[in-house]
């Protein structure tokens, strides 16, 4: 059954233009938390207009489209409402993947329908197949790693990895050439997608842990690029504009993340982060210098403090400690001290991960300070509470030019009067190096699970 209206193509193009404007206005709205909700709604409105106009113009094929829309909407809504805020990196990884997968299928289906594709659409089809398949499989691997499902979340390394990737990269480029030379050949496109899929899996498998924010940003960018190239396949302007916006967004975010780790994109993607030779061993750094503390002692410190800074890390997300942290912050504030949160750009597993968790726990966003803003204030801070963060507060980054995190901008918590580190053990962070902060004269270690430690602290502060 089909119902279609005769729509003048000019109206369709105008509607697409309106949709593109709404997308841009929507992202502009994200410039401030106050206008962000409306911005997101404007983006959604743009999407609705573009989709409805397309359906009106092309007729409603109830079989395929309605079924697809129902299944997709249901799955999307379920995901969006059920997902825990701590699992947001997985959610974004999964969404990136579906975007890439959809673009790959669109380009493939368009190819099958065109009798004699011109050079533009065959080149664009090849590009979409390559980028889309890499995005889809790469994102699924990223999801599995973040969920710690089947594969470990850390780095997975095996011999000949680089050579194999280079070979696959070359093979996928050859397949692209095949698609361009023989655009009507289904075998060519299927081979391209198959090779690119393996490449996507192998590119992401070795990357782990603290490098995840870069990978997710990059896959975000790829999903946009695949959308834009599928726009070239169909000669559709709104696809090109929206894809370009998303592509730019992902690239900007990856750049910010790389800068925050003082590493190049190539180093994150292909380099191996290992302990530097000749670096001090854990025993040399920690022996006899680490002071363990108790919740009661920390409570006493907190009751005498005028300024307290909390530094959250991935450990806070793992321990689901954000609500307890908020309660503790409120309690300290009620005793007259000033409390702020110091957010390192790569804390957590995706850009802005800590901000979302603390927002979920009702921490006002103006209490969350960026690294450059809060760093000068540490010498005037009485107590710093580090919760589940390690490499981003490691002073070796400043002092040891040979260590793997050399030159990475860090939060200067060691300059505060007292630093309390809440951590289960002295185990190293992602960079695999000891942290001299833990052995510093002004540092105290509270060895406990994050949430339990905060709850004990709350009880101790209430008693004091």
């Amino acid at each position, binding site marked *: 059954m089909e119902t279609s209206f005769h729509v003048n193509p000019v109206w369709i193009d105008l509607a697409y233009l309106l949709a593109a404007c709404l997308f841009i206005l929507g992202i502009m709205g994200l410039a401030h938390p106050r206008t962000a909700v409306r911005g997101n709604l404007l983006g959604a409105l743009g999407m609705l207009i573009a989709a409805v106009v397309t359906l009106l113009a092309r007729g409603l094929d109830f079989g395929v489209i309605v079924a697809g829309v129902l299944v997709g909407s249901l799955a999307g809504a379920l995901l969006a409402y059920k997902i825990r*805020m701590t699992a947001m990196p997985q959610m974004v990884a999964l969404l990136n993947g579906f975007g890439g997968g*959809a673009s790959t299928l669109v380009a493939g289906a368009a190819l099958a329908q065109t009798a004699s594709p011109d050079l533009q659409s065959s080149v664009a089809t090849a590009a979409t197949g390559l980028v889309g398949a890499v995005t889809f499989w790469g994102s699924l691997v990223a999801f599995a790693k973040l969920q710690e499902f089947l594969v470990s979340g850390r780095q997975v390394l095996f011999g000949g990895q680089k050579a194999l990737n280079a070979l696959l990269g070359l093979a996928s480029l050859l397949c692209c050439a095949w698609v361009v030379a023989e655009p009507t050949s289904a075998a060519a496109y299927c081979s391209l997608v198959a090779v690119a899929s393996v490449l996507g899996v192998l590119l992401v498998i070795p990357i782990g842990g603290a490098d995840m924010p870069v990978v997710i940003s990059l896959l975000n960018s790829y*999903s946009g690029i695949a959308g834009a190239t599928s726009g070239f396949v169909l000669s559709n302007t709104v696809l090109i504009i929206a894809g370009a916006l998303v592509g730019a967004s*992902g690239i900007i975010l990856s750049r910010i993340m790389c800068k925050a780790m003082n590493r190049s994109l190539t180093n994150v993607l292909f380099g191996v982060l290992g302990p530097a030779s000749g670096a001090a061993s854990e025993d040399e750094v920690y022996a006899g210098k680490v002071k363990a503390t108790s919740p009661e002692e920390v409570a006493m410190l907190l009751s005498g403090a005028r300024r307290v800074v909390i530094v959250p890390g991935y450990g806070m997300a793992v321990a689901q400690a954000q609500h307890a942290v908020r309660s503790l912050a409120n309690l300290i504030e009620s005793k007259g001290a000033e409390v702020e949160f110091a957010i390192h750009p790569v804390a957590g597993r995706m850009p802005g991960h800590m*901000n979302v968790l603390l927002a979920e726990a009702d921490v006002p966003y103006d209490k969350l300070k960026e690294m450059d803003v809060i760093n000068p204030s540490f010498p005037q801070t009485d107590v710093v509470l580090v919760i589940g963060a390690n490499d981003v507060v490691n002073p070796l980054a400043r002092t040891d030019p040979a260590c793997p995190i050399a030159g990475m901008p860090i939060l200067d918590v060691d300059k505060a009067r007292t630093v309390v580190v809440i951590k289960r053990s002295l185990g190293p962070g992602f960079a695999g190096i000891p942290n001299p902060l833990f052995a510093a004269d002004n540092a105290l270690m509270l060895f406990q699970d994050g949430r339990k430690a905060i709850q004990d602290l709350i009880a101790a502060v209430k008693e004091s």
Partner: protein
Amino acid sequence: MTLMLLLTIFVLAVFVGFEVITKVPPTLHTPLMSGSNAISGITIIGAILVATSSSGVLTKIAAFVAVAFAMINVVGGFLVTDRMLGMFRRKD
């Protein structure tokens, strides 16, 4: 439409993207990712276009999966972004 025109649109859109996205503060970077993700679900247009003109069984299946994937992106992306942004707004 000519390739040059489409390419021009693409390049200009990249510039617009860089301009507006650098203004998004780090605190909203996660909603930016999920929101821009929803926008990349614009592939739904492409999916609808191929679904309505497809004839073979295989292309119909591909179109169905493409529509479903793109809708997960659109609905999941916008809803989860709205849910997150609501948390940021509450404190005003």
